[in-house]
């Protein structure tokens, strides 16, 4: 077998053309930039008052446009020809494009359907009015499809992401696999890494970890942030009053907690925690709930992220079970959120109230228990036959630490938005109607801040992806053979100056996903500002 070149035999024809077009495009862009500075913006005004563009500007603009179109056409030509003819005619690019064929097909289907029905699809449909949003959406949906098809159905990858083939260590892209049998893929499309594994398959498989964890962790962080941020922004007075039902309830919980602490923790820590909980209750009696939560949020925010990771995500800390206890606290927020959300809506309908609220809360609580409880970890509450979800401990640690880092920022955003929205008339109207505070927070305020929250959600998934990469880069959390991008970059960076491809491929993959999310957020912001 021969080694593949980047563009194969057909490249001899296509490469010169694309080089010329690229050169033209760059020259045109340069002239355009000089032009915007040198030429006047307007030559005069039309009769309807619009600006008459300088004719030189128009020529330059047109040149740039055609060059760009030509460039894009040529690029898609590479992809299309590659997808049809495969590696034999278009080399590595062809081979990759051929492997990604199911993804191209699904993307075309999704885009066609979305563009046809875009007027009926609300905010999602409006996304297809802005080119930036479309590019962002394309990048994101590409990686989501890669996860679904490669992670779920094992379609795109050429080799097993963990198997090592002898003689393929640090090989350049396109090297034929030694001893490949019939039915095996004949080449390592993007070469081998320092343990002779296929770089292409690892990058594709690695997407699954990021695509699953990042949005889920961001969602949990949003649940925590919203559940704490709404009351912090909404209530102005002290939430507890002396000798009321709430006061006794909170004091009781604090008392039980303190006694528990005396049972399991060293005495001095238990005394400290008791004093702390008494202090918190005193604060809740004296000042708004905002003061307490904001102080805690600022405390976490003052912590450098990287130090927090190093403290939380080490095998020694995992042994103490600290991440499991944190998961117990953090994962309860979605249960509380949905319970309160439904209760606030349905408390006027006694006939179905308990069925809906109780049912949903029970199901969520089962999910909660099966996520938190794990055999061999300190938190082992649920019997094994009831345990529906089995989270490996290293995934749980990474998940918890990422949620923990993101929550305070979300809290601050939600709090700020609530402070702004609660002065509106419709909130005053709801208060006059006698609605409960949680109904106003969750069904009046929350739907009206969804725009900024959705935009921030997209940005935050990108940020979470970066955080996951950081964790992998320092070898924290996931085990060293895991194909996720951060860990792969960490493994590849030692030989960076000799064999850069194994580190470069996951780096570019991570960058494209984050870029896609940022562009998507930008597009969404633009479109939601229009109305």
């Amino acid at each position, binding site marked *: 077998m021969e080694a593949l070149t980047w563009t194969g035999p057909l490249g001899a024809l296509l490469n010169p053309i694309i080089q010329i077009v690229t050169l033209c495009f760059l020259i045109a862009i340069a002239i355009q930039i000089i032009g915007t500075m040198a030429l006047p913006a307007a030559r005069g005004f039309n009769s309807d008052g619009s600006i008459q563009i300088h004719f030189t500007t128009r020529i330059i603009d047109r040149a740039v446009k055609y060059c760009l179109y030509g460039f894009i056409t040529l690029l898609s030509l590479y992809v299309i020809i590659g997808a049809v003819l495969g590696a034999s005619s278009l080399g590595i690019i062809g081979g990759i494009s051929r492997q990604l064929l199911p993804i191209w097909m699904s993307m075309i289907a999704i885009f066609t359907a979305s563009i046809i029905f875009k007027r009926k699809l609300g905010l999602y449909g409006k996304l297809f009015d802005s080119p930036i949003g479309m590019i962002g959406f394309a990048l994101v949906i590409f990686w989501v499809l890669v996860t679904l098809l490669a992670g779920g159905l094992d379609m795109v990858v050429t080799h097993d992401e963990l198997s090592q083939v002898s003689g393929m260590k640090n090989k350049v892209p396109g090297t034929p696999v030694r001893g490949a049998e019939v039915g095996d893929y004949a080449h390592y499309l993007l070469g081998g890494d320092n343990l002779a594994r296929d770089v292409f398959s690892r990058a594709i498989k690695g997407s699954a970890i990021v695509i699953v964890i990042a949005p889920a962790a961001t969602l949990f962080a949003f649940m925590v942030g919203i559940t704490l941020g709404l009351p912090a922004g909404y209530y102005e007075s002290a939430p507890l009053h002396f000798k009321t039902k709430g006061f006794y309830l909170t004091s009781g919980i604090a008392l039980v907690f303190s006694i528990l602490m005396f049972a399991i923790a060293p005495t001095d820590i238990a005394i400290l925690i008791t004093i702390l909980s008494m202090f918190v209750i005193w604060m809740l009696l004296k000042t708004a709930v905002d003061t307490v939560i904001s102080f805690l949020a600022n405390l976490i925010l003052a912590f450098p992220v*990287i130090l927090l990771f190093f403290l939380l995500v080490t095998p020694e800390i995992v042994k103490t079970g600290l991440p499991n206890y944190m998961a117990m606290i953090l994962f309860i927020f979605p249960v509380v959120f949905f319970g309160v959300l439904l209760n606030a809506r349905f408390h006027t309908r006694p006939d179905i109230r308990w069925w809906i609220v109780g049912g949903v809360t029970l199901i969520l609580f089962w999910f909660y228990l099966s996520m938190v409880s794990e055999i061999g970890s300190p938190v082992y509450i649920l019997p094994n036959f009831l345990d529906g979800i089995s989270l490996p401990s290293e995934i749980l640690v990474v998940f918890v630490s990422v949620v923990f880092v993101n929550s305070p920022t979300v809290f601050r955003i939600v709090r700020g938005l609530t402070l702004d929205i609660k002065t509106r008339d419709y909130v005053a109207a709801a208060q006059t109607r006698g609605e409960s505070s949680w109904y106003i927070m969750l069904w009046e305020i929350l739907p009206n801040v969804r725009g900024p929250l959705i935009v921030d959600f997209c940005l935050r998934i990108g940020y979470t992806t970066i955080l996951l990469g950081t964790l992998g880069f320092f070898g924290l959390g996931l085990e060293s053979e895991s194909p996720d991008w951060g860990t792969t970059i960490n493994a590849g960076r030692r030989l960076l100056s000799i064999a850069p491809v194994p580190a470069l491929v996951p780096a570019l993959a991570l960058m494209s996903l984050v870029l896609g999310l940022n562009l998507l957020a930008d597009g969404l912001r633009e479109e939601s500002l229009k109305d």
Partner: protein
Amino acid sequence: MILTAICLTFVVFVMTNLQPNLEKLAKTQGNFRMSDAEVASYLGDRGFNRPMTIKYGEWLGVVPSYRIIGRDGQTRSRCSAHGPVQESTVKYCGVIQGYWGQSWVFKEPVATVIDKRLSRTGALMFWVFLLMIPGALILGILAGMREGSRLDRTLSTVTITTTATPEYVSGVIFIALLASSKFGLSPLLNSWGWTEKRTILKGSATSASKDMPADFDISFLPQFLDGLWFRLAEAPNVENFLLPVITIALYGMGYIARMTRASMAEVMTSQYIRTARLKGVSFRNIVLRHALRNALIAPFTVIMLQIPWLLTGVVIVETLFNYKGFGWALVQAASNNDMDLLLAVSVVSVVVVLLTQLISDIGYVFLNPRIRIS
């Protein structure tokens, strides 16, 4: 602010003093084959098996340090760096007394370690700021002066791309492009005969973190500025320092540029700018004289609040380029559970966070004439 610092250091203290972490420390400092009993006596002799709050009080300097006669007959104290007690050993030694403890990894007093590393990171940050702030402000102002124009859209795409490129990605790309002898631009330029060297830039900044030679002397500078001069000008050069600097600067630049752009765009739509335009002031004068000052108020706050965020970048870049600065020390301290060093590192970073918040608040009041505290 002091309350925050105390809370945070206590958290770090508890985390580093958890039992598995202590065992790891004992095993790395003693030897790996120690039995459980030996680990317990090692830790006991050095005062680790006592209540957490008392140990924290010792570190803070409000509780007298332990004096334990170990199983081997030696009397140890925290104030003598967990070694044998001497005549001169004091009773209280903590942060309040100015003693930061002894680093287990570097076998030096923590204060020395931090001092040395901070000066290196300081030099790195100096160049980063020199590159990042003007770059970000120029990009933001150019993009924001004509909102929606083609220049704006191009520059906005550039800034979105840089914010989407974390340091470990851009660092890898830069090394592959510019500092690899087999890949990217270096072999290309070499084969064309444009460069003599095998790589254009170096993928490691180790040579920029070298120690100052003892006889280092600059004639035109007073003695005490020599060290500063050495860190800023002599040790680093373009070849070994440019890549780490642009790697950090690029990621921070995007965000500041976007904030500047938003602020500039807002100023450009305000009434007084329209008045100036209608009076016939040239566009250049409007941007430079009328808009610029008001547009720069918001970015100042952003730049200040960006500094703590840069810390993560510093840690990543110092690890990637093997530059032995503050971030590198953080990684070493954390992965070896070097508790005193880790505590000092967290104190420094918390102080940086809180100070930048304070400066940004004060600076905002100074820059913005609309806010005056009476």
